[in-house]
């Protein structure tokens, strides 16, 4: 039992060392976006054509070079700025592929470029559809 508690504590502390700074930076980016992103641009991109805004959010989510959990402060800021729930869904779910270089290189190397690109294309398509469903249902 003691060993397990020690493992949890030590490993949690190790994880916090990487997660907390990344999360702080993501929160800072979110706040900067919230303050500096002109409301007209935010509305045009995030509240305009739903298909386009969900597609853009999915692509941003996919290429955003930050850890998955760090997307939340940014998504929250965009939500405050007027982004729809479908856009938030697409942005958060877009983190499913690309974004962590070590993970992507491993996946590419282990399962081949065809599997990697297929997953990339399929994820993009499914997430866009999911964004629409979120828009309608939530």
């Amino acid at each position, binding site marked *: 039992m003691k060993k397990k508690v020690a493992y949890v504590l030590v*490993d949690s502390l190790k994880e916090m060392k990487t997660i*907390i700074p990344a999360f702080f930076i993501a929160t800072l980016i979110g706040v900067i976006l919230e303050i500096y992103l002109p409301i007209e641009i935010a509305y045009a991109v995030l509240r305009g054509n739903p298909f386009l805004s969900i597609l853009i959010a999915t692509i941003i989510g996919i290429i955003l070079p930050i850890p998955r959990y760090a997307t939340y402060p940014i998504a929250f800021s965009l939500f405050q700025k007027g982004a729809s729930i479908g856009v938030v869904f697409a942005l958060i779910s877009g983190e499913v592929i690309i974004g962590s270089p070590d993970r992507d290189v491993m996946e590419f190397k282990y399962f081949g470029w065809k599997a990697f690109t297929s997953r990339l294309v399929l994820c993009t398509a499914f997430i866009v559809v999911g964004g629409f469903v979120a828009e309608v249902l939530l």
Partner: protein
Amino acid sequence: MIVDILLLTLERFLGYLPVLLVAIVAAKVLSLYMSEDRIGVFLKARTLKKRNIVEASLLGLISPGPLAAYLPLLKVLQSGGLPLSIVATFITSQTLVGPIRAFLEVDVFGPVFFAFRVVASFIIAIGIGMCFQIFSKQITPKVNNSRQR
């Protein structure tokens, strides 16, 4: 202005921090009971049946930790005959939801959004697995074709 930005960042960050800390510890506790080896044993038992895509999706949803930790194991299993469709399903659902994300998501966007995302992620991963199953001949690397059969 910079001071305002930093203060707002700090205020918001401190708001997230308790949830983040609980999430990290909860993920570690979960990893005690859901180790990579256990997941490997479970996945190894899977065959080509369609329902195994559903199980792989479910397993991915509850697996803690970064995906990178599971990839070498998945590669070994795939070389040993685990279909790429199951690998793709597991990878997709594992990255879509996770313990740390769960806590943050409920805190930031509420339980309804989280529940929707869990269900959607489960379905998306299954959909991707099914597409991989349909196009397995085109997608699977040629070296592993003989083993897959």
